[in-house]
């Protein structure tokens, strides 16, 4: 049983109780994905599995045999930040930084969700691709809590990333 994390293979753990988040943090020391609530309510643990975002605290590691996981540690190109990472810094899309990896992973995922026309709770017309708007972005990021109050900067960063800044 192996799992790929940031393009490298790892053996999955024997203990079936281990969440994907705990496996990454406590066994592999990928501490970039954060544990804010361990119950799927804060989004700090968001990672991509085969390109789709999931909450890794609600996923058992053993379920992800053969799957490919991308974490915050896997999105930069060496020393060069991923464009959304750079936008978070530029737009002050963070304070303490604890929710930041999850916000960025959600931001990366929501761009592809928008590009393929997936609707959200605020999409007014389900028969056409959602119109890009700040509310669409806010809704799609609302599973990622921030307590410091960097919301404006986060949305500015993600809006710039998905090209919705003019909306």
């Amino acid at each position, binding site marked *: 049983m192996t799992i790929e994390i940031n393009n490298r293979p790892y053996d999955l753990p024997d203990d079936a109780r281990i969440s994907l988040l705990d496996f990454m943090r406590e066994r592999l020391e990928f501490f970039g994905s954060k544990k804010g*609530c361990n119950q799927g309510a804060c989004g700090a643990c968001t990672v991509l599995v085969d390109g789709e975002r999931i909450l890794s605290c609600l996923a058992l590691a053993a379920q992800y045999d053969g799957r490919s996981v991308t974490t915050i*540690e896997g999105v930069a190109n060496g020393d060069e930040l991923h464009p959304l990472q750079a936008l978070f810094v530029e737009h002050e899309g963070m304070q303490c930084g604890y929710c930041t990896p999850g916000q960025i992973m959600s931001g990366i995922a929501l761009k592809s969700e928008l590009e393929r026309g997936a609707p959200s709770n605020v999409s007014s017309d389900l028969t056409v691709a959602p119109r890009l708007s700040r509310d669409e972005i806010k809704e799609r990021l609302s599973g990622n809590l921030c307590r410091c109050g960097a919301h404006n900067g986060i949305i500015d960063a993600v809006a710039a990333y998905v090209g919705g800044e003019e909306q």
Partner: protein
Amino acid sequence: MTNIKPNSSSHKSDPNRRQVLAGSAAVAAIGAFGLPVGAQTTAAPAASGAFASLGVPHVRRDGAEKARGGAKFAAEYSYPGMVYGALVYSTIARGTITSLETAEAEAAPGVVLVMTHENAPRLERPEPFYSSPTGMAGSSTPVMQDAEVLWNGQPVAVVLASTQEEADHAATLINVAYEEADAVTSFDVAAESAQTSFYAGRDLLIEEGDAEAALADAEVSVDLSFNTPAHNHNQIEPHAVTVLWKDGILRMHDCSQGVDLSAITIAKVFGISSAEVHLSAEYVGGGFGGKTVWQYHILAAAASQLADRPVRMSLTREGVFRICGARAPTRQRVALGSDRKGRLTSLIHTGTTMKIENNSMTEPFFEQSEHMYRADNMHLEIRAGTMDMLANTFMRAPGAATGTFTLEVALDELAERLAIDPIELRVRNEPDVNPTTGREHSQRASVDAYREGARRFGWVPRSGQRQGYREGEWQVGTGMAAAYYPYKRFPGGAARITLDREGGALIETAAADMGMGTTTATAAVASERLGIPYDAIEVRHGDNTLPGALIAAASQQTAAIGASLTAAHEVLLAELASLVPATSPLHGLPAAELGTAEGALYSLADPHQRIPLIDLVAWSESGTVSAEGQGGPISEWTQDWSMHSTGAVFTEVRVNSVTGEIRVPHITAIYDCGKILNSKLAESQFRGGIIMALGMTLMEGASFDERNGRVMNPSFGSYYMPTHLDVPHIDVGWTDIPDPQAPTGARGIGEIGMSGPAAAISNAIYDATGKRARDLPIRLDALM
């Protein structure tokens, strides 16, 4: 009109903005800024270009590391042989443990230790805040020392195991039996025996004249009651610590808001010297007053000692709710009397809150009422009832968060009865000097903030008539309120400056950065003070082995660091003076006649006489020049001046007439907080307070089961906080007038955002619907 700094309401980068702000910083550095060294006596080396650091919107220094996921938090340090901790919490509010069955847990896979009061090491009681100058604990309740239970949720056992899963499982195998005792777990019951309380060394009672008689005689009056619930900080990083005892040192990777005070407090519990505790917290995942010393620190260290293994103790989210304190609930009365012109003749702000037997923290909700408005007669008083509950504690803007809500709603109601615009009512009661102490204001431009906020928001003045209107099923209204937070500076600040051969400087101070941008602001202040480019300044913080005993609390840390840097700079000038060669015109000049600017030491009397700092460093024996200084006496706010920040918050609210749903699409806030050191980070700090206040107003509240004192919603699934879709773009600005009495001209900005929005939203809800909301949170059921 004051020079109000425009703040881009769009977030597109504005190339001109940097110039404007840098220019104002350059002026400030030589003029109004109050540099205590002689720099203001000369027109020569002014901060400019690479040397202009204050007010410049530098991006945060740790931004890239945080964006990469590379910032290491307390639970992210590992040691060989490390084991994981899990806690078992009491399920009764008060009583005695009669039996603890631990055998099954001890035999469970991976378990290395079960610790209870029966085998825990003997420990001193922790020193809570205000019990000593260094007390940093939430309460003095003994930590697993006997069979007594004092709150529902108290840890009664610790399990250490090789993995978190094993520890969590084993914790479920422990059976605890109790003999329950009578407990006070109802606020109503506690309130019956509440006593006039005290806070920060004074009684919470101020009486001037006869406020009740004046209220009865007033031409116009309001007399109102309010309720606010308990609030949790809910930092997204749950409290955690990684502990190692090695070579006689207790090493702790913590998430502390004050590393030195945490280390001293923990050292005393273990009966060791604070030099035997090395506690660091480079990154802290949110603090808001709650990242102090709670039982988990001590339990982790005690269990680690007992098991002789390094320990990682990460609280579950439920665990944070069970053992880390919250803002106390309050019941407040605000009564205002005035003449027909709106001059206050009576200001009464009284009420009841709760505390526990083992702490000295009474939520000081009348503080803004002491300082905001003049009134002929005043009665301010806070009573506290004692409950058998988790300790209440400090949370962002203690007192002012809920106290401003009640006072500012009352003013709105009074303005309506007077048929005076709410801004005008506040202006008519703007005090010339501090209303209760009589001291002069160090700097105060509240009225400018009100007026500028009104202009930017598009406030429509009103005289007793609601301005709200209807848009389909939405009722739309606007409201405003003043904001308030005091300036403070605590003793204990210190910093060390070390100049290197390359022309850079290292600043070391045991300050905390929970995300406010402390290191970024410190680098800017140091750059300005030293005359060394911002990018050549390195800042180390968050480690108790560094100078100082600072705490990021009460919005005072930046002032404490500023005073420390000023003191260290004075020592540094003396060090540099001793290195001046005999051939130099600067030779023999005392430190008081020297300054540093543009990378050089220069004569204040003749600024053209200068020696590059790199030359002086090269001439030193060690190849570095280092100086440490401690922030001076704090009399500027304790004795000499009235130092308070104020502001104005304007909101538009939409209430759905069918569902009662409340939305806040528009917030403008203008603050008078002294000099703003970094506009980018300041914007974010103000907004952060406003957003937490938005949560307090519309959704937040910790619910206790009054039968047994247990928190009923210990989870992010049931304690609601603002999400992205709840938060509008927030327009913030500031007067940017340096406070001549504050060390950097800045009064602190971390908490004032929390004060004001609740009243502004409640007042806007009234404007929209005609319904007054005086209990928090204001949920849709209150408006249906």
